[in-house]
């Protein structure tokens, strides 16, 4: 007798309902198998306690049927879940239950998003030239560029220009401080030349800024403003070396 057969017969064995040769086999197995012996002991304790707690006048209608129900309940709890029927997997949806049209739409969406990200990445990677970013107006934007700026993946020309001007002004501020530190060491001729050129650049910056306020789409003025701010930056940087 093996463990499985033994455990199936525990209940009738304890109730003395087994035929003699099977009961003998049970006894033999229980002497050599600690696990089944323990299980049998546990059952025996439960039965004993039931017999003690139940009043003598209340006799179960059918002890065998009751034990069958208990057994069924226990078995139903320990029974492994039935294997799910294998779902037919499509060529596109290996592991995903999606249709061909859904897969196609998904691939197209991925292709579009990766293209957009590539374009934005390339645009951000390369140093923006003045012509590209600071001098362009909305009118000269391509439909694709307008789309990118609408969905927030790219700056509009005005935004790009403002951002670049901010950067240039920050650099100018830095170099101006450096020049202030050194300026005292220059001779009069150097100071005059510097001031004259700086004033001219400031005049130009002011002039182009005013024109752009009136007409933000003036590409040429945007480009000139960029040039003049760069020139101012260069002038300050070069004189701060002295």
């Amino acid at each position: 007798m093996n463990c499985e057969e033994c455990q199936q017969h525990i209940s009738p064995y304890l109730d003395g309902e087994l035929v003699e040769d099977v009961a003998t086999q049970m006894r033999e197995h229980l002497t050599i198998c600690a696990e089944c012996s323990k299980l049998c002991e546990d059952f025996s304790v439960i039965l004993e306690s039931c017999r003690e707690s139940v009043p003598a006048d209340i006799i179960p209608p059918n002890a065998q049927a009751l034990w069958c129900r208990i057994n069924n309940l226990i078995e139903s709890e320990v029974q492994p879940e039935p294997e799910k029927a294998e779902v037919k997997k499509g060529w596109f949806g290996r592991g995903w239950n999606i249709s061909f049209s859904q897969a196609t739409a998904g691939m197209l969406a991925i292709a579009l998003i990766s293209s957009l990200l590539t374009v934005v990445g390339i645009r951000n990677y390369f140093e923006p030239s003045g012509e590209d970013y600071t001098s362009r107006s909305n009118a000269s934007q391509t439909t694709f560029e307008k789309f990118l700026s609408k969905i927030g993946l790219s700056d509009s020309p005005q935004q790009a220009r403002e951002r670049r001007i901010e950067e240039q002004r920050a650099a100018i501020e830095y170099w101006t401080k450096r020049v202030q530190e050194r300026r005292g060491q220059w001779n009069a001729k150097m100071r005059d030349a510097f001031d004259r050129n700086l004033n001219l650049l400031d005049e130009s910056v002011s002039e182009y800024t005013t024109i752009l306020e009136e007409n933000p789409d003036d590409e040429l003025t945007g480009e000139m403003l960029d040039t003049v701010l760069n020139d101012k930056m260069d002038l300050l940087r070069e004189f701060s070396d002295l």
Partner: protein
Amino acid sequence: MARTSKSRLRKYFTGKTTILLLLSVVFFFAPEETSAQKRFAKTYPATPTVRVSLANRSGMVTVEGWNRPEVQVRAYLEYPAAEIVPQLVNGTIFINVVKDNQGRAEVGNVNFTIRVPYDAAVDIETRVGNLNVSSVRGALVRAKISSDGDITLTNISASQVSAENGIGNIFFDGEISSGGKYRFTSMRGDINLRIPFNSSFKLIATAPSTRSIDLGQFANNNMRLVGDGRRVTGQTGDGSSSLVVTNLRGGIKFIPR
């Protein structure tokens, strides 16, 4: 009579001695004049395509091509004389007066005359002062003045030319090589370009304030005005080279050779 002449002589010599003494005192205590000059001269053996890079503080720089495989550097240093420490690195001669004199309170003008092989590349800049380059036909001619000064480039046949100044004129007289790049930028002054009448180039000429862009014989149907006449773009010939001219507050003029 003799006494009178003696006293006259004594008076004469006493007066002269006093004047001499006074003059010597004046010369002794007087500050050295700014015209006092120190000289610098050095010659370097060079390959025909040597590169010369000069950064000056103030003063005039003249670079001339010559038919010798050497670079001759001569400089006149005004008081207080600048330090000049030329360096020869990997076939390039570097002279950086700015770096060599950084932090010095007073440095006088340095006026350079440099002779280079015809095919040399020339890269010169100064903070203040005129720059002149002539008879150079190497790969590069770059001249930059940070503030005031004129740039004069004559008899140039380089494939890359850049001239940039603040307040001052730019004059270019030379060839426009096929595939070359030419850039001239000024804040205020005149830009005059004298080039062969059959030159081929793509042009972007911008004069936003004056709108004075005189193409002369180079005007053709391929040229168009942009931005209310502030810019002219177009091309002559096959447009094989690129010419960018910007003058913020001055005019641009093309003169055929």
